[in-house]
């Protein structure tokens, strides 16, 4: 049984750990709220781009555009989105497990895989793997990624696809379903897919400047970009909400631990007092 002094020391250290985890929980909660708002806001853009794209698709202009070309997949590019920091529960583990599964499946199906990692956890993980081709690593992206930060990733992905070097581009990210549910998800962003929507007569007759192709190019590029951006925001919101839950659990555990330790210390103190009394009364009896 540890001494009272040892117990006191442990209680103190667990208490300070609890303060830290509680602070991290609060920080994650406020960041999550902001990330959640940003995630919702981008949906407007994606919807608008989708609408435009289906207008164009209605005209049959997408048929022979290089970014829509569906080919047999011999090589694909995976964009893996993780966080830079840990302590977010199973957040990074889930993503990396999913990624590893995809890579193994590709190996069995004789498909080559290239990878772009976003977030330090992903780049550290892939650095330890053998036989992985890395196209790029993006660490320390800012908390709220600006549109311009996307261009480099987007340009790499579209160039590789356009030149036929890869036949598909997939993003592995954590889908923010709600603040309680987040799932590691794979989404194909190239070849570009789209959902059909109603096309108004006026847009059907619209003129395209400088040309239909140029406009299509602009829209596709932006839509694919918006999808990557949306994935980034989803990942971010998920990260913060998973960190919040992880830190809440840590705080609760610390509270339990403190209770247990306090009980143990009180018992130890009581035992010491009892022993002392027994010794005194034992001594008194002996004298009598």
């Amino acid at each position, binding site marked *: 049984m540890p001494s009272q002094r040892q117990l006191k020391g442990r209680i103190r250290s667990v208490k300070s750990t609890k303060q830290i985890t509680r602070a991290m929980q609060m920080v994650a909660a406020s960041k999550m709220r902001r990330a959640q708002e940003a995630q919702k806001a981008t949906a407007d853009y994606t919807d608008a781009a989708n609408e435009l794209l289906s207008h164009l698709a209605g005209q049959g202009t997408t048929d022979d555009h290089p970014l829509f070309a569906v080919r047999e997949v011999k090589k694909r590019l995976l964009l893996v989105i993780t966080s830079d920091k840990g302590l977010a529960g199973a957040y990074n583990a889930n993503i990396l497990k999913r990624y590893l599964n995809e890579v193994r499946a590709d190996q069995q199906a004789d498909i080559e895989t290239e990878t772009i990692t976003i977030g330090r956890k992903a780049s550290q993980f892939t650095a330890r793997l053998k036989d992985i081709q890395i196209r790029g690593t993006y660490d320390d992206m800012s908390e709220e990624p600006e549109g311009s930060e996307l261009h480099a990733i987007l340009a790499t992905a579209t160039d590789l696809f356009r030149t036929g070097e890869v036949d598909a581009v997939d993003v592995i990210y954590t889908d923010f379903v709600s603040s309680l549910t987040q799932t590691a998800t794979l989404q194909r962003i190239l070849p570009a897919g789209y959902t059909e929507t109603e096309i*108004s007569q006026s847009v059907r007759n619209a003129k395209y*400047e400088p040309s239909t192709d*140029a406009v299509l190019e602009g829209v596709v590029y932006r839509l694919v970009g918006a999808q990557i951006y949306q994935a980034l925001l989803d990942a971010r919101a998920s990260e913060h909400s998973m960190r919040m839950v992880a830190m809440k659990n840590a705080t609760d555990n610390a509270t339990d631990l403190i209770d247990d330790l306090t009980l143990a210390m009180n018992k130890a103190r009581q035992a010491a007092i009892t022993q002392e009394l027994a010794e005194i009364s034992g001594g008194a009896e002996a004298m009598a």
Partner: protein
Amino acid sequence: MNLRLVTLAGTKVDEEVYEVILPTEDGEIGVFPDHEPLVTLAKTGVIQVRKAKTDPDDRMELFAISGGVIEIDGQQVKVLVDEADHAPDIVEAESQKALERALKMRDEATNQVELEKAHQLVDRHMVRLKVADLQRHRRRR
């Protein structure tokens, strides 16, 4: 005529306007109600918005935008851009500093990715400064 300015960070503007001047790949265009349907590409530049027919030029609202797509159907102008800043939200000193940083980044860029990013930042901050400048001149008048 309804104007919708949608960015990656959400919808910036969604309101009734009389006239919109837009920077496109083929030059600036002015759009009034019942404009013929048109889909075109926006380039980095300034959007000017006249809300009411009677508003003078110096009451027009200004937005600095980066490239995007414009869809016009006579009753609605939909502008899809990566980024847009409303003139009153731009802090000139900050933009100036950001521009200097971007210029430095461009000069020190060691690879294509950095260079591209720097070029975009330079363009973006130049436009923001231009908008801030226009806004200031108006206030003086």
